[in-house]
């Protein structure tokens, strides 16, 4: 069932939470909604499950508008951001809750609960009550309960937030497994762009209540539609440098590229495209984060901060305060309009003049 949001608007007082948002979610896809906190992810999900009514717009599910249906009539399973496990029920009863409410036969409920518990490795917790669980365990139980609803769309609102790194990795794998098992449509929100990139089939970048771009993650990463999408997706964060086009060249601080066109632009450069070496534009190293296999190097390029990511194969990262040469392949530079942030044609040819 294709899910389509059309012109969804929602305001709280003068704050626009959703600004005529449009988004199409293909049936059976795993769509990740990624944006900073307060960008409208949770509000959109709450509107989809029916906990809030939109001020305007339609939610089309297989062509039928469900924006005004009561939550009980929407085939949507929901894993809220907070676990909201019922303290008076056991883990098994909590998980069975959506099925019990839907009056499934008892043996069918037991079968489904057991299977889901197995996939999320919480079988040993079934008899416990929520207050006996750790944060990560609660989270898995909440995910299990949300996914046990007999629904066609599952909405997960940042279910991995606040978990430690190892547990996140594991839950991400388990979620991928569940998704194949259930063959349903998934909508998943996160503010962590790495999580989004690694899990998404389709990545929708949301900011200030609007979808900036909706495309496969590689497409969003390499070909961002707007400067803000480049800024939000990827870590370490991309470099955004102010520049000026004119007279056949592009000037950004000390950097010079041959280019056509005119006007103020923003240059978007991924850190991995900033090459460090003996040659190139001299820059001073201000900070080095050595991650073992790679290093993030923060540079001062004539007053312009610049981030570079380098692989550490048999080389060492530069020392702080050392001078290094910076070179940038013009083909990797993404150009955006300085006022609208919209993408412009990139630099096709030519080379960087130091």
């Amino acid at each position, binding site marked *: 069932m294709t899910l389509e949001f059309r012109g969804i608007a929602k305001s709280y007082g003068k704050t626009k939470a959703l600004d005529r948002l449009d988004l199409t979610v293909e049936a059976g896809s795993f769509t990740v909604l990624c944006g900073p906190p307060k960008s409208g992810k949770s509000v959109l999900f709450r509107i989809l*499950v*029916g*906990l809030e009514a939109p001020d305007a717009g339609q939610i089309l599910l297989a062509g039928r508008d469900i924006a005004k249906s009561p*939550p*009980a009539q929407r085939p*949507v*399973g*929901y894993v*809220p951001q*907070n676990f*909201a496990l*019922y*303290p*008076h029920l056991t883990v098994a009863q909590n998980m069975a*809750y*959506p099925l019990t*409410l*839907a009056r499934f036969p008892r043996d069918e409920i037991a079968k489904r609960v057991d299977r889901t518990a197995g996939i999320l490795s919480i079988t040993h917790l079934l008899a416990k009550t929520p207050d006996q669980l750790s944060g990560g365990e609660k989270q898995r139980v909440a995910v299990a*309960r949300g996914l046990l*609803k007999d629904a066609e769309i599952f909405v997960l609102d940042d279910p991995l937030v606040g978990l430690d790194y190892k547990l996140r990795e594991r839950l991400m794998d388990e979620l991928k497994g569940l998704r194949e098992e259930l063959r349903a449509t998934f909508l998943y929100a996160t503010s962590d762009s790495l999580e989004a990139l690694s899990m998404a089939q389709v990545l929708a970048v949301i900011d200030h209540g609007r979808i900036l771009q909706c495309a496969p993650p590689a497409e969003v990463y390499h070909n961002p539609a707007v400067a803000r999408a480049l800024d939000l997706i990827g870590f370490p964060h991309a470099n955004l440098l102010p520049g000026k086009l004119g007279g056949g060249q592009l000037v950004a601080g000390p950097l010079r590229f041959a280019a056509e066109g005119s006007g103020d632009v923003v240059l978007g450069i991924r850190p991995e495209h900033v090459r460090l070496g003996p040659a190139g534009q001299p820059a001073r190293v201000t900070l080095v984060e050595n991650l073992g296999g790679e290093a993030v190097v923060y540079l001062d390029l004539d007053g312009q901060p610049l981030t570079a990511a380098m692989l550490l194969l048999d080389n060492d990262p530069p020392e702080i305060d050392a001078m290094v040469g910076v070179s940038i392949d013009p083909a990797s530079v993404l150009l955006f309009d300085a006022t609208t942030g919209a993408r412009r044609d990139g630099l096709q040819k030519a080379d960087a003049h130091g």
Partner: protein
Amino acid sequence: MTRLRATLYYGILWLISLCFFAPIGWIVLSSFKTQNEILAMPPKLLFSPTFDNYRALFANDGIFKQIANSVFLSLGAVIVAVVVSFLAAFCFSRFKPRGTDFLMFLLLSIRMLPGPAVILPVFLMYVAFGWKDSHLWLLLFYAMFSIPFSVWILKGFLDGVSTRYDETGLVNGGSWMHIIFKVVLPQVRPGLIAAFIFNLIFVWNEYLFNFIIGGVNTQNIPYALMVGTYSDGGLNWTFISAMTSIYMVLPIVFIFIFQKYLLVGMTFGTVRGEV
């Protein structure tokens, strides 16, 4: 040294507790004594217990009706009050109508009226409507008096239950009835029990309204105590002690059963007891 101090400390605690218990001990012991033993100076601690007082008490047919009235009026009024208050508090807590705080204040203001100040208008009203000496209308009067405080207690508890629980219920297809009774109610059980016991004690001990707007049919135990005290010309101590001992059974049983909920209840859920 520290051991001695601890012993001393607990000794004092026990002594104070016993002081509080003394009147109860005295009245219960007295109920097994004769009139002369009760009034003996110095008090007799050793005596051969007699059940004559209880026999005399139950020889009077009216007493069963009075006990039954007390039980019916108290439990009935309190159950009505707790059900109504729970639903009202749920609405205040979840739907937050405009001016909730002021409405809550208005609700409680009835408890600021002293009973004797309103007893006359209430009496006239009950007579005019023909409600006097009726179990139902007396029960509803008690319920009305119990509701405001119960709403206050329960709203505190309901505010402590996150609306996320409601939302999970709604999303999974639960109706409002389901959410109120299956999702929220189990989580405010200490509050319900606290409200239940507070009001039970109030109605159980109520004398004035029973005397004025009740009647022959609705006499309760406090009424019986008041009237029976002077029945033989002097103070009828054997009657008072036996009647009082019976009278205390119900509240003691309830408080004993529910004592672990009471601390949480009386502190409006601010002290998190292990319940």
